[in-house]
């Protein structure tokens, strides 16, 4: 009897998992990818020792948010149009590549939206019942065992940004984490890499005293990760840039 009840629950649980997965693929989350939770050591830590984080499964947009998608958002949420947005939420260059507050060259529709701030990106995601991914989630979802061609980080392209989908999807089925635009994360201001980060563990190590600046990186040769963490630490919540976009995430 006890076993029967257990079996019943198990079947029910399996069914609910099946249906919830099925619904993810045909609802508004069709352009989101399920990232299965796992243990992960991020490339950078503020602590002395690296900590393993347990990441819960989540959904993340397959592509960065496009200009067209953002246009639809501001049509429905006038507060975030460039002539209406309170200046506390975005600096002067907010959407500065838009010809006017509600139009953009249709040829650019599939470009990732840039010149957006943390506040505006957060509002966009919230309007879709989503959120910005945390830095940890972003780093985890974009992480690849095999190193990729990451030339972009040496010379980030800030003009004539290509359409989203320029890059093949990674092993998790997600595109454009690298080599398209920088991306905002929810807790972008979590890690602090200052001008002189040699004393992060309290003492200046002989070797670090010369090269320094890398703080506690898992792999000191991982320049792309260093570039990302440093870049994030320069952002403010109202910063907008030509090469700065975002994508959204969602809890399961």
């Amino acid at each position, binding site marked *: 009897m006890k076993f029967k009840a257990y079996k019943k629950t198990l079947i029910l649980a399996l069914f609910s998992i099946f249906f919830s997965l099925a619904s993810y693929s045909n609802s508004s989350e069709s352009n989101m990818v399920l990232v299965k939770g796992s243990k992960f050591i991020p490339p950078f830590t503020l602590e002395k020792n690296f900590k393993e984080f347990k990441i819960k499964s989540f959904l993340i947009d397959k592509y960065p948010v496009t200009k067209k998608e953002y246009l639809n958002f501001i049509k429905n949420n006038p507060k975030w149009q460039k002539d209406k947005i*309170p200046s506390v939420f975005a600096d002067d260059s907010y959407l500065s590549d838009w010809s006017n507050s509600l139009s953009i060259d249709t040829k650019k529709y599939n470009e990732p939206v840039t010149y957006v701030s943390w506040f505006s990106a957060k509002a966009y995601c919230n309007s879709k019942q989503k959120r910005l991914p945390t830095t940890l989630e972003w780093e985890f979802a974009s992480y690849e065992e095999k190193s990729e061609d990451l030339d972009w980080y040496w010379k980030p392209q800030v003009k004539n940004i290509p359409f989203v989908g320029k890059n093949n999807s990674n092993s998790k089925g997600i595109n454009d984490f690298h080599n398209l635009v920088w991306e905002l994360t929810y807790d972008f201001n979590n890690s602090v890499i200052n001008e002189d980060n040699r004393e992060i563990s309290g003492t200046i190590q002989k070797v670090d005293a010369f090269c320094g600046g890398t703080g506690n990186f898992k792999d000191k040769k991982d320049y792309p990760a260093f570039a990302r963490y440093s870049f994030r630490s320069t952002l*403010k919540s109202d910063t907008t840039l030509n090469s700065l976009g975002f994508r959204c995430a969602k809890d399961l």
Partner: protein
Amino acid sequence: MKFKYLTIALSMLLINFNIPVFAKDHNNHHEHKEMKGGEVTSKSIYQLDSKWLDQNSKKIKLKDFSGKPVILTMLYTGCTKSCPIIIGHLKSFYDSLSNEEKNKVNFVVVSFDSKRDTPKNLKKFTDKNKLGKSFYLLNGSDDSILEIASLSRKNLTKESIINKEL
């Protein structure tokens, strides 16, 4: 005379937190008129629409503080290192004011710890520290807290601040 010190202390705190000034828009240097309560400039932190509870479980929005100078600080009551010093300074400053002056300024203390610093705990903290009636200790969601922290340009998250000390 005391008010002179208040202004100095106020500007020091605001600079320290780098928060867009509450009552005046700094971009309008030529227009130095005082704001009336309720008016909110484009650059003001009052644009944040977040909802808070104070130590008396009263619903509050940041905008409700407009019209009076505000001294804002962020801490959490379980913090044992810098927070007691911060609250001590604020309290001795408040206590040095005359009754009339006390009514002209608000002390807003935003807790980082949305979970533990419930209004009830904030009330205990208020009583324990004998904080006067111009003190508002606020409890809000993690997201609301992060918004204020991000405007203050402090690199703060729960992970980096609270967990370290507890």
